[in-house]
């Protein structure tokens, strides 16, 4: 007897996502290999990263098929990290500026 509780899905979707992850990884490697620089580089890296992460979480980790009570409890809290990133960006800019002033003028 099969447990209806388990996350059981046709294998096809896994193979598709698997292939997709390979393709996306090669794309992000290509970004480095062909020396794409500047904002285009960072945008591409982020796009491929989020796509990969999304597919892993949604399909491989089955979040797509979970009830919202679980998915939101897992996916909601990490959003707060954006605040943390914001704070630390501000802080590191400040540190950089003070270092600039003190290391250059030495006062």
């Amino acid at each position, binding site marked *: *007897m*099969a*447990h*209806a*509780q*388990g*996350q*059981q*899905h046709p*294998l096809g979707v*896994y*193979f598709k996502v*698997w292939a997709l*992850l*390979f393709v996306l*990884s090669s794309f*992000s*490697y290509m*970004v*480095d*290999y062909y020396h794409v620089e500047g904002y285009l*580089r*960072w945008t591409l*890296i*982020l796009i*491929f*990263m989020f796509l*990969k*992460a999304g597919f*892993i*979480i949604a399909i*491989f*980790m*089955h979040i797509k098929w*979970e*009830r*919202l*009570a*679980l998915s*939101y*409890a*897992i996916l909601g*809290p*990490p959003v707060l*990290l954006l605040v*943390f*990133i914001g704070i*630390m*960006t501000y*802080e*590191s*800019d400040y*540190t*950089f500026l003070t*270092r*600039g002033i003190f*290391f250059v003028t030495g006062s």
Partner: protein
Amino acid sequence: MTPSDTDSTIAQPGLTPGLPGLAEDWSSDQRTFKNVPWGKAMMWIFLLSDTFIFSCFLISYMTVRMSTTVPWPIPSEVFALSFGGEPIPLILIAIMTFILITSSGTMVLAVNYGYRMDRKKTAILLLITAALGASFVGMQAFEWTKLIHEGVRPWGNPMGAAQFGSTFFMITGFHGFHVSIGVLFLILVARKVWRGDYDTGKRGFFTSRKGSYEIVESMGLYWHFVDLVWVFIFAFFYLW
């Protein structure tokens, strides 16, 4: 309902879907995560806390990289590897990435065959996953050795900003540690699957109810998480 029925709360047709279901689940008594075995819910909560640990590492890396006045070493060159000819940028890291993705694929198949009660296939796939994970750790050890020989230390390196070494060893070290522990548990779970512990409901640690392979899914969640963290490390540390 007999106690065993309540215990295994199989997909209840009575559950409300969508947002009203979310409100209903959270305001219901006894359990919030319907249809989810407690072991899996706990694994998710552990992974959530682990997310914050790795985020702290990556954010501290961002902070030191943004605030240093010394140029950051170029990862593309630092991690280049030459096979007799011209050095190929980031090649080892690319191979490691593909190995980890492959292992994620074998893991997801293991979970699937586990739920199909295919004992042998599940165990073999788990062992393949473990072997791929072990080779990943091996390559990481190689990479560490190479960098240490080139004079990279947690307190400084010949290529540029001193913070490069400390963040590199901390982030990849912590990730490698996760992979190593994962390999260990994959082997343990594979052994239990092979012996048929989950069919007979044999008692011991990491057991589950008779005929239930949910441990394999929790193991899978952990393994995919390790892959997930690598996606972020690859993007932010090696490619940025």
